[in-house]
């Protein structure tokens, strides 16, 4: 590497560090402009001093320009928040999507109960108690969801310090190197944040509100919930928690590091394999049969209360969901393994 190339490489490392501290919305644009301005500034400085661009000259120039953290702050990256500007747009997006899903699912459940359950006809459709019970459960779901979301994002924000933030004194020569596969292997932080949120949400529901981890029906006499385990589904809660914890931890590490590495690809494969094993256990150990399903239908819906008719589709549906989940996980895990082995061979 020539001395000029060393100087320009220092600028690229500097700009990359500033970019890491900027909100993603403006990152690429600011980085491009900053790179152009710094290169021009250094070249002008070299011309004025009758020298060639080299690492020393560039380092001195960058030192005057300011530490990456300070420059990023001036560009709009702020210091610390409960949910900072880097995460806030994703937070808003996830909040909107999750509230929409809760709203639609909740409303669909309510309408389904109202319209398709034989003994719950139009006369009772706007039954005050049913409506209130639905509204209360909806409000509770919204509150719990929002609380989990804020908590999750606050934790991620806490663990999302800049990868490199110099203190008062800094040396441009000590800027971290550029990632080898910059750009191609960059992690989509938004997706990882959504994943962490999803794992935390599911873990909270499974461990603290297990009655909601099942089938829910809104009827004239209130909300009725049949947990999956009462339907005969095998739920190894500690093992499931462990899987979600591992997956969430991997996502948090990816968010902090900002890029995929070989070890994190293997970790992703291992987590996938673990998930497949759990699903296999659930599929083989569950006793989802017609008896359970018929009992559940009678508990859930008024129309089946006094009827002793078999109701097998609920059990079949759960089996199908488990089989599809297992097959999907196996295919995805197999693809990950194939990519890893191919990369190793290359």
């Amino acid at each position, binding site marked *: 590497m020539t001395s000029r190339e060393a100087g320009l490489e220092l600028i690229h490392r500097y700009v990359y560090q500033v970019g890491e501290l900027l909100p993603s919305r*403006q990152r690429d644009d*600011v980085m*491009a*402009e*900053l790179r*152009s*301005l710094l*290169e*021009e*500034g250094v070249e*002008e400085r070299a011309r004025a001093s009758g020298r060639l661009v080299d690492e020393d000259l560039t380092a001195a120039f960058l030192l*005057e*320009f*300011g530490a990456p953290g*300070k*420059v990023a702050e*001036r*560009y*709009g990256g702020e210091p610390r928040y409960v949910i900072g500007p880097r995460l806030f747009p994703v937070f808003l997006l996830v909040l909107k999507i999750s509230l929409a899903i809760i709203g639609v699912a909740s409303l669909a459940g309510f309408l389904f109960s109202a319209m398709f359950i034989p003994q719950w006809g139009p006369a009772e459709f706007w039954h005050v108690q049913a409506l209130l019970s639905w509204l209360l459960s909806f409000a509770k779901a919204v509150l719990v969801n929002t609380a989990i979301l804020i908590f999750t994002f606050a934790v991620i924000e806490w663990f999302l310090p800049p990868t490199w933030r110099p203190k008062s004194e800094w040396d441009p020569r000590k800027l971290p190197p550029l990632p080898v596969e910059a750009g191609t292997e960059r992690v989509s932080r938004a997706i990882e944040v959504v994943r962490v949120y999803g794992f935390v949400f599911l873990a909270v529901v499974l461990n603290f509100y297990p009655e909601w981890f099942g089938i829910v029906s809104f009827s004239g006499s209130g909300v009725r919930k049949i947990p999956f385990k009462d339907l005969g589904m095998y739920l190894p809660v500690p093992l499931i928690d462990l899987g979600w914890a591992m997956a969430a931890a991997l996502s948090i590490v990816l968010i902090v590091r900002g890029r995929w590495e070989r070890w994190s690809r293997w970790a992703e494969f291992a987590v996938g394999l673990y998930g497949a094993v759990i699903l296999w256990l659930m599929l083989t150990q569950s006793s989802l049969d017609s008896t359970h399903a018929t009992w559940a239908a009678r508990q859930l819906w008024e129309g089946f209360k006094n009827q002793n008719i078999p109701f097998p589709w609920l059990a079949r549906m759960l089996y199908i969901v488990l089989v599809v989940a297992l097959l999907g996980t196996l295919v995805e895990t197999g693809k990950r393994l194939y990519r890893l082995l191919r990369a190793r061979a290359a």
Partner: protein
Amino acid sequence: MKTIPTPDVPDNLILELRRGAVVLAVLAQLRTEQYGYSLKKSLGDAGLAMDEGTLYPLLRRLESQGLLRSRWRVEDARPRRYYRLSSQGEAMLPALRAEWDGLTKAIRRVIE
């Protein structure tokens, strides 16, 4: 004759003093299109040297406030972002200048 030593004015006080004036100077300079580095030079030539780490983010802020508009142009094989006053900035500049004139007169009256 005994001379009274002039104390150095701390940098932060100077920065504080210049902060508002710099915005007016930048807007006035950008009646014609310029990119960051050329603007820094023209301000410096006019006796208003500015730290690049302050000037470049300021341009982005003024653009986000709608006072400037920008576009990328490639010159000398280098992509450069050029800024100039937006129509809102052009409308704002005379008002800011009038404000500045009033302020300098008032300050002069106060300090003299």
